[in-house]
């Protein structure tokens, strides 16, 4: 997993609540057995006027000029600001894969769906929860200033604006540690392999039917 320290980048807004994982990456693209290449199909139904199928070259398709990510001012955006309950719906990790592959490294919203939120950390995509009033303010600023950027500092747990407003965010200490150091969680867990084995042995003795 890639390390995350600080990022200053252009912000793109998705001004809708309950953006679901079917919208982030439609199901036809889930047939892939690979982990990469989902970025070109991110928000496929909203981003393109024609219907997308796996294997299509999205650079040759018909973009929907009205969709926010197709507007030149948001080109190169690495921070996505969104509304409540972002990422609701399915457990597909393809959704964070698509966002990351497209170029996003941070998503800021007033709330996230649990599974999506969790999945983001596993791949080094940072989901940040800020109060909805702060997000209202950011949405207004983004609309007013083309090329609007935010700075995210993970170590200090802060998001700062070009006019030096600073908003702090919460993050679990373990997740922060993993992101800052780009750690492989499986490797960390396997350091406890003997303890897992001991737990399992005890469990097998107490509830043998679970191990039949």
């Amino acid at each position: 997993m890639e390390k995350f320290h600080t990022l200053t980048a252009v912000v793109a807004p998705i001004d809708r609540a309950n953006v679901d994982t079917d919208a982030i990456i439609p199901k036809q693209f889930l047939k892939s057995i690979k982990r990469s290449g989902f970025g070109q199909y991110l928000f496929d139904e909203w981003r393109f006027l024609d219907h997308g199928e796996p294997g299509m070259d999205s650079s040759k398709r018909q973009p929907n000029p009205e969709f926010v990510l197709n507007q030149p001012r948001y080109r190169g955006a690495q921070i996505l600001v969104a509304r409540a309950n972002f990422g609701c719906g399915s457990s597909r990790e393809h959704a964070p894969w698509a966002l990351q592959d497209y170029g996003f490294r941070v998503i800021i919203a007033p709330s996230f769906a649990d599974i999506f939120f969790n999945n983001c950390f596993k791949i080094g995509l940072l989901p940040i929860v800020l109060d909805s009033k702060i997000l209202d303010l950011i949405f207004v600023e983004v609309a007013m200033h083309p090329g609007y950027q935010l700075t995210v500092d993970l170590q200090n747990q802060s998001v700062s604006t070009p006019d030096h407003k600073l908003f702090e965010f919460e993050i679990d200490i373990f997740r922060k540690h993993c992101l800052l150091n780009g750690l492989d969680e499986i490797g960390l867990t396997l350091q406890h392999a003997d303890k897992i084995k001991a737990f399992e042995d005890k469990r097998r003795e107490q509830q043998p039917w679970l191990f039949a």
Partner: protein
Amino acid sequence: MQTLYDKLWDQHIVPTESTDAGSMSLIYIDRHLVHEVTSPQAFESLKLAGRKPWRLNSILAVADHNVPTTDRSDGIQDPISRLQVDTLDQNCDELGITQFKMNDLRQGIVHVIGPEQGATLPGMTVVCGDSHTSTHGAFGCLAFGIGTSEVEHVLATQCLLIKKSKTMHVVVEGQLGLGVTAKDIALAIIGKIGTAGGTGYAIEFAGSAIRELSMEGRMTLCNMAIEAGARAGMVAVDDTTINYIKGRPFAPQGEMWERAVTYWKTLHSEPEAVFDRTVTLDAAQIKPQVTWGTSPEMVTTIDGTVPDPARVTDEVKRKDMQHALNYMGLKANMPIQQITVDKVFIGSCTNSRIEDLRAAAQVVKNKKIAANIKLAMVVPGSGLVKQQAEQEGLDKIFTKAGFEWREPGCSMCLAMNDDRLNPGERCASTSNRNFEGRQGSGGRTHLVSPAMAAAAAIAGHFVDVRKMNG
């Protein structure tokens, strides 16, 4: 005084004495269900890292999302779908994982076959790379959906590092009206608390109306917990649970059965247990539900009307409503019963079990689908459900009425196979999500119970199943 969730949580903590884990705990996983869509990348990474599955007999695999529901003798036609299913077959064969292949009678939707086989047992932690894993909580388990990285983590370590949820008690007291089902309870709850109402919580469903539900009904309810935002839903173990499990292939037998039952009977919240949040509903007040929008919380009753965004003060909410109505091709204040449908889908991990098919068959018996219905299909949840239904003659009732009787799988719940809506088509569906494009690009989904979907097929529009003459 512990809640059921607290008991399940405590039972599975692997003590690590680790100080840098923050609020995360290492939780042991008893049952790992695997399907073809969310597993290939996990198996690939596991292999690349030179790791092997920790405990093979914890895993049960099946392909359900990509399988055709029509004649399977020629295999899967779509090469990309076929590759995904073949990849699961190869991974399972290579590693020695128990799998029900496409032509196995036991094949079906992963959340139907787990309980059907007795592979889902009370007191277990059950995970699957699928958000509807919450279904299995109906058996007094801690069951929740995970992403592909976590699938790999469970394969490699038999554990997950997770944060404990808050607890929500959803209490439904009283008696359900005739024609009102677990699906209607689920949608009524989501209508009340919203699709994010359960975010961060594990929900325990309780109360006399829940105790009266069959296991099929409890599974429908727990299945939809995720649509209320809760990763896990659960129901305490009682005689209904134990009677359902008895004699199933993976269930314990003989002396082991007695030991297991003694333990399972402790799997309930203590009377004085405190929940972080409690929500109550009066079962008698719940009417058949129909969703009108593009989120399961956009729901009303069959005697209701499409809501009017003009009456909503919150700006984000109003815009979302307007957007949903445009997508759905509906007008504000239109009576729900005037909405005509093009297709009817009875199936999915929410509503494809034998009881669901019986309820729908009862409605369509000796009737014909309306002339405006382009397709009405029944997709049983598993080969065994299909077989049981055929033994009861339900397939004949459906086909005589004009329904198609299909092979088991996820089918048009998410349209990864050939079963889908065309742009603009409207569907009465017993599935779990009415998101934009969920059942096919541009398709319009209305979530309902099996009886209500059947009634819509006969009438050609939504109709109150309670008022249909027998």
